């Protein structure tokens, strides 16, 4: 079962064009959707999750028409939105059981088993009877993935799950995601490159409602082989460099600035070769698609 998105467009009533003809084919396995804030990731995710209408285009999951046959999609969907809340005065166990009922798990015993298993898996078992209102951000996020995994989903959509988590929680979360089976389509949207590096074997980069790149992370990195150059400069020189070269990223390093520049050949002797990373792929694709700024 693969997810096919074709020519999906969406314009909000305030005129913002969130999706401009997005087409993607997503095979089973972990798929990373990388893009900066406001790229249209969440819009795309919500549209796939049946929570939002598209203006035109189509989405199919196997032979399910996602935009029309929402109920069928929901039967196989596990969704963890970017932002969500919980009933603060309900315990994780009760609420998960409630979700299990909504998912259609009618057998009480099965429900109990699966809820217990998920709580163990997400390491929430010990605090299962505590009110959700008392959970920390990471615990809440793990609870979120637990509910998404209820009812043997075939399509799992995880929207920016690690934003705001501390490193330990992020690790824990990655471990959880990595255990999800390969038979289902898992879409992970994020603006953190490491998330994709750690977890995904397919990815796409999206910005301003358009797909910029699409493929396997390693292959994408390969395309930049020998084209990324590094130079450490003073802060005052950054502007000049940006005007002269295609600077794909700049970050502070011990009071100086490390620049990564995209060029087919070494720009000059002051640059040294830099083995490309996925981050470079990401920034390069965004920078190259932006209208040149002076």
């Amino acid at each position, binding site marked *: 079962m693969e997810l096919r998105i074709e020519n999906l467009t969406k314009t909000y009533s305030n005129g913002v064009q969130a999706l401009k003809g997005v087409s993607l084919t997503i095979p089973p396995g972990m798929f990373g959707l990388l893009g900066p804030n406001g790229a249209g990731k969440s819009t795309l995710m919500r549209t796939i999750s049946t*929570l939002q209408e598209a203006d035109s285009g189509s989405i199919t999951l196997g032979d399910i028409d996602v935009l029309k046959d929402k109920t069928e999609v929901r039967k196989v969907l596990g*969704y963890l*939105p970017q*932002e969500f809340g919980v009933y603060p005065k309900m315990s994780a166990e009760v609420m998960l059981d409630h979700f299990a*009922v909504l998912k259609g798990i009618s057998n009480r015993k099965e429900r109990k088993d699966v809820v217990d298993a998920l709580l163990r898996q997400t390491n929430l078992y010990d605090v299962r009877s505590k009110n959700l209102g008392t959970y920390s951000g990471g615990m809440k996020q793990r609870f979120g993935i637990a509910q998404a995994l209820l009812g043997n989903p075939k399509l799992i959509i995880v929207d920016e799950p690690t934003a705001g988590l501390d490193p330990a929680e992020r690790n824990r979360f990655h*471990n959880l995601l990595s255990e999800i089976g390969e038979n289902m389509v898992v879409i992970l949207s994020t603006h953190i490159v490491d998330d994709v590096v750690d977890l995904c074997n397919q990815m796409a980069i999206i910005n301003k409602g358009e797909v910029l790149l699409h493929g396997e992370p390693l292959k994408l990195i390969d395309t930049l082989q020998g084209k990324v150059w590094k130079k450490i400069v003073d802060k005052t020189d950054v502007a000049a460099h940006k005007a002269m070269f295609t600077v794909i990223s700049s970050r502070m390093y011990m009071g100086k600035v490390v620049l990564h520049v995209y060029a087919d050949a070494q720009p000059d002797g002051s640059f040294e070769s830099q083995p490309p990373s996925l981050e470079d792929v990401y920034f390069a694709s965004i920078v190259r698609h932006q209208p040149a700024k002076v």
Partner: protein
Amino acid sequence: MFWEIFRFELRYRILRPATWIYFLVFFVLAFLFMLLLGSDIEGVNFSIGESGKALVNSPYMITGLTTGLGLLGVLIISAIVGNPVYRDFEHNTHALMFTKPVTKAGYLGGRFLGSVVIAILVLVSIPLGFYVAAISPWVEADKFGPNSFLAYAQPFLLFIVPNIIFTGAIFFTTASLTRSMIPNYVGCILIWVLLRVATSLVADLDNQTVAALIDPLGRAAYTDATRYWTLQEKNHLLIPLSGLLLTNRLIWIGVGILVWAVAFFRFKFSYQASDKKNRKQVPVQQQAGDVQEELAAGPATEAKKETARLTLPKVVLDFSSRFRVKQLLRMTRQEFLSVVRNVYFLVIAGAGVGLLFVSAGQIGKIYDTATLPVTYQITDILGGTFGLFMFVIIIFYSGELIWRERGSGVNLLIDAMPVPGSVFYLSKLFALMLVQVLLLVVLMLCGILVQAMLGYFNFEIGLYLKALFGVNLIDWWLMCVLAILVHVLVNNKYLGHFVLVIYYTFSFFMPQLGIEHKMFKFASDTGMFYSDMNGYGHFAWPFFIFKVYWSGFAILLAVLSNLLFVRGTESGFGGRWKQARKRFSRPAKLAATCGFVIFAGSGAYIFYNTNVLNDYGASGETEQAMVEYEKKFSKYKNIPQPKIVDVKLDVDIFPEERDVNISGTMWLKNKSKTPIDSVHVQLSPDVKIKYLRLAEPAKQVLDDRKQGYFIYDLDKPMQPGDSVQLRLDIAYESNGFTNEGGATQVVYNGTFFNSNYLPFIGYTELGELSGEEDRKKHGLPAKERMKSVYDSVNYMTNALTPDADWIRFEATVSTSSGQVAIAPGYLQKEWTENGRNYFHYKMDTPILNFYSFLSARYEIKRDKWKDVNIEIYHHKGHPYNVDRMIRAIKKSLDYYTENFTPYQFRQVRIIEFPRYASFAQSFPNTIPYSESIGFIADVDENDPESIDYPFYVTAHEVAHQWWAHQVIGANVQGSALMIESMAQYSALMVMEKEYGPEKMRKFLKYEMNQYLRGRSSERRNELPMITMEGQQYIHYICAERLYRRRFTQRRPARLPRQNGIPGSAVHAVAGICEIPAQRNARLAAVCDHGPVRKHYALRE
């Protein structure tokens, strides 16, 4: 600092659209109220309270309107003044704000005063709206006096501004300290509870001071200050700022300042509302070791990816409809619990229950004497008092339920679940409906508790269930559907609440705006009026049909709500509309079709009943008919007509069918000095005439069925002294039901109708439109006042039923088996035939042409006073005051025979009739007596404050056997003195003899109150007793004057001597309740078929 914050608040608020929306809403409301009061729009009959006929722009009226709108204004004040500090918490800006170098005084003071100024500016729209309406070209100039600035400004400064300060301080403080807006809703409700307590206290004259003081908005104090104002005072005086009103204003402004002081001292610039909460909210921490371990494990490794696979137990997913139902039940349960576990729900419901117990003490008070807490009284209170709380709960929790997921952010999780949208919608609807059931159960228990507390143990559980769950519940359920629809449509919680409040207000005024047909007013019905005697009677069926009709409509609304229900992030109306068209699936279509079929089918049936089987007469049509009557027939006003001298009738009452057949003869005699060539006969237009002819050869020259006017030309004119027989066979039949549910004269158990059902001879001015303004509206000349007492021409006729003097009377009345039928006269014979009971009554002395017929299942209690038979016909469950009535009859007969003349009859009968009307009326030796004004009175002999009104009403009615049935005035001024004032005086004397002069004080205080209130809406000058006319409120105070005069014999008598009143006595009607039946004798039959009024006063 203060000024910066103050100015910021002003600037921020002025730029908010909400501020302008509030302003506009109130401006429009004020404008409309004033316009409706001040204009003459066809079909619109708008009035407020006891406004009487005061000028629309008089200070009195503007104050009344201002304080009225001020009630709604409280909502706005809570939104505006409650908000400024809460806003910082809502938007999470408090952390930014509190870390700035602001002082507490500057912050709280600036925010508070800024928003108070905004609230004042917003509510200035009220006087502004009034003023613009007053100077608009659409108002009638003669309803207005000169516009004075103070008339508009004073109520605003006296009521609105202090109320903003007081209620604003409360809302500001609660919202700032609790950091939540919800307590403000509760605050609104509690203020409203105080208002209600004040109003329910006003009923007792002794409580008026307390009532005037505890009303936080000052309306009760205003009412108190102007209660007895005459029209002149109302039109010209400003509301005096003194006495109770001043005290009230000072008290509540003081309370406001105190409350604000609490805010100032308790408020903390802290992140959390209180330390306590901090402790509770401590987040659960993972075991420290656990975290370390995870950290050590480092990022997910390739190896881990390969090996660790998520293994979850296999589950079977169930999408069968059976499991859908289970899901629905589970969701419903959860939603239901979320409401009833909410602390504010408990507060609102608790406040309602508290108010219930306060008002329970005032049950059915008449003259400060309560009635027994019979179940229907209790259910009335439950429905009435608690109704608003139910409504508030529906408005509020429909919003809470709709926004529950979105409020806590669970919505996206839930919305992506494989559950049909209808499960979400229905679970919320059902939960809200269940809440209503729960509330009604609580109410029922409260009712029983109240009854037990008052020492009444006849719990009619069946009636409770019927009244609460059979009648009340469906209305609340319909309201639930509507409320949820509004919240779904509006998709903004606060705006949704506001829309529903406006709807609620508007629904009160719909009839006054000319929307009378019950088919156009959501959830309405023809009324469901309970009487112990007749149960719900014939009201039950139309009620049921109307509820089916509205349920059909509600199904359509529910389908619409379900289609537009917000799921996912699509919340704009356009997007949802597109979604809805996709969602309109087969089950939805099926439900909509069912709803439509039910709605249209029952609607057609209702229309057939109200408009085809029955004449749907909007109120304007009745008026029009009266105008036509006058225009067409007033030319016959002075032509001589014969008088009825003998009536012999066969009356067949069919209680089950609610039909009456009347056949018989009337002898008409020419008592004038000229020959009469034509006889004018009038009948109610509702009648079915099978036969109506003179026995002499005559030609029917006019047959106006619409007006019920018939003229017969005699071939041979009647010479003076000649008689002619009128033979008749007529029927009054009930077909289906009317927009009001149907007439209440002939009912299943408790039929009572009078001689209005029979022909009237000649034209009568009583059938003309009487209201001055109404006449003017229809271009009729001002009506001449009553004939002068010195005009001897009129001594030959009387004001009330001018078509007869004294008559001979005989009637055979039949009714269904099990019932007793009663007419004036002595029972000659009683038999059963064809399964029906027959009673033959005959009078052996002449009586007025004023008689009644009654039929019901009665218990009869008999007694004797000398050779006079006393009989009380009462409902089986109403034995409480029967002995009291018998005692009153005996004492009355004692006093009247000793002081006036012998009693002309050999029997006195009191006959109970259902509480569709609440009066007692004296017919010859027959006194129909409503079940509501004495039979269930709870007179406490030991309580000096408790007035024995069953005794008093009985004495009054028995007195009419003299004052009306022996001595009667002509159709001239002053005749009312001899009927009402004398009967009242007589009753007072009997009362005094029985209870002593001390006890009379309280009673007389009530009489005085009635007089002063009556006077306050009188436009014409008051006339001396001898020439009194049509000013009913004077009749009774005259008796009081007569009564008091005995103690001041030495002062010159202010009263005319009685033999100074000419008039050889012709005719009159007596009744403690002088309803229009008297003044509009001709139309009484029409009126009697009119709407059943839900609220009754002893005397209006």
